[in-house]
């Protein structure tokens, strides 16, 4: 599903924030990504989600060598990926419903078909009564849940979640992780960056640990779930 070999990445002309990343995420696997603040977790997730280009190394996604894929062919690949951004990235003047419906609309799903889908997922994350609220009138945790709902609504093949439980309490965090497990059972490959070591331990999945731009404990990375 995802294969990186000796991948490096830098922002603009700055120093490399990721060095010699070698990893493999098999189809249907579930990984946590941990590491101290500033280690490069968000950067690695952005690489996997096709939001940045590696500055060196070999990277392939869904079996396609990224150096050979044309720009136009990236769009269909991206439609198979769901992203939970660390800073949510909700569109402030769209309602929670419309924010969550966005990936389906971009993929051309008919309005009639997407309505129930969007409602159901917003119910799951506990926001059934906030369908019409605009993000600026939502609490931090509510915004984060809208962001999660948007990432999973299109049932992506690959889900990349950056600190998806940083603004919710432990009970809600567990509930959201269970949603991720549900998706995983249906075949979605997951990689979830988190600071919550306890949560990661609780789920007993493969843990990738980043330290100053380099992956530690490489052995664990190869262990598919």
């Amino acid at each position, binding site marked *: 599903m995802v294969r990186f070999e000796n991948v490096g990445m830098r922002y603009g002309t700055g120093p490399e924030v990721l060095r010699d990343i070698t990893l493999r995420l098999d189809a249907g696997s579930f990984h946590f990504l941990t590491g101290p603040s500033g280690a490069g977790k968000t950067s690695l997730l952005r690489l996997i*989600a*096709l*939001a*940045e*280009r590696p500055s060196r190394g070999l990277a392939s996604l869904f079996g396609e060598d990224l150096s050979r894929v044309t720009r*136009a062919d*990236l*769009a*269909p*690949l*991206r*439609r*198979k*990926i769901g*992203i939970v951004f660390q800073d949510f*990235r909700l*569109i*402030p*003047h*769209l309602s929670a419903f*419309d924010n969550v*419906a*966005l*990936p389906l*609309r*971009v*993929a*051309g*799903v*008919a*309005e009639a078909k997407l309505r129930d889908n969007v409602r159901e997922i917003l119910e799951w994350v506990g926001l059934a009564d906030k369908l019409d609220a605009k993000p600026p009138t939502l609490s931090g945790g509510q915004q984060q849940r809208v962001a999660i709902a948007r990432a999973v609504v299109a049932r992506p093949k690959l889900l990349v979640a950056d600190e998806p439980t940083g603004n919710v309490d432990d009970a809600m965090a567990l509930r959201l992780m269970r949603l991720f497990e549900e998706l995983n059972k249906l075949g979605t490959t997951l990689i979830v960056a988190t600071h919550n070591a306890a949560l990661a331990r609780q789920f007993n999945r493969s843990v990738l640990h980043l330290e100053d731009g380099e992956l530690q404990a490489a052995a664990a990375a190869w262990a598919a779930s």
Partner: protein
Amino acid sequence: MSAPGPAIPFGRDGSSRFLPALTLLMVFLAGLALAAVMDLERALARWDQSLTGTLTVELPAATGATDKSLDAALAVLHDAPGIKSATAIDRDATAKLVEPWLGTALSPADLELPRLIDVRLDVSAHADLAALRAKLAAAAPGATLDDHQLWLDSFARFARSAEITAIAILVLIGGVAVMSVAFATRTGLAVHRDTIELLHLMGARDAYVARQFERQALRLALIGGVAGLVLAAAALLALSQAANAVSLLGDSVTLLPPLHLRGWNWAVLAVLPIVAGLVAMATARITVLATLRRLP
């Protein structure tokens, strides 16, 4: 990709109010400028027509201009094609024309004044002046035909430079208006950079993303443009009322143009909001595509 879904609205971030407001101002200004130019064109054309439509035939007194040769000249003129009317100016009227130079004490009878004929041409049918000149010379020896060529030449120069100036002003205002609308559209989009990246990462194709913003820009500029046009039309009607009121007071020498726009003039004005909309739309498209090209 087939169903575009509801557009992503520009936010209440100022841009959704600013683009229409600026477009309103620019269409208003451009509308007045365009109306002024079209009106000037018409005034010049009418002026041109009233001049090119007249000739003066002169039968000098020294050649012994008699009523007979006057009649002969009139007959030639009445037969010639493309001539609307030919009227002899009577002796008293001719004397009045010379009066400033000769004083009133001298009676017209004392002088052998030349006889003048005022000729009005039918401007739609082009009269052959060379042929007419020859025929007149034959019928009434010594008759000369004054087609005001000198006056016309300098008038043509004047009209040409008036036109150039007016068009230069129009182009200038138009250029500023187009650039302002383009700038306003770009500014409105600056706020939406994150949204553009978000759609891109969701796998939306460039054309789809561009379309979302194009549509909004078109809509907002059209709203502002139509409002600006309505304001401009109101101002033009008010001006034309004012001009009529002034001319009723007998003040016919006025630079305030008469402002009688015809149907097609209004049609040309109605194009302005459409131009504004297209400028906004094209700018939105270019800006969004440029933003997208910078993303991987």
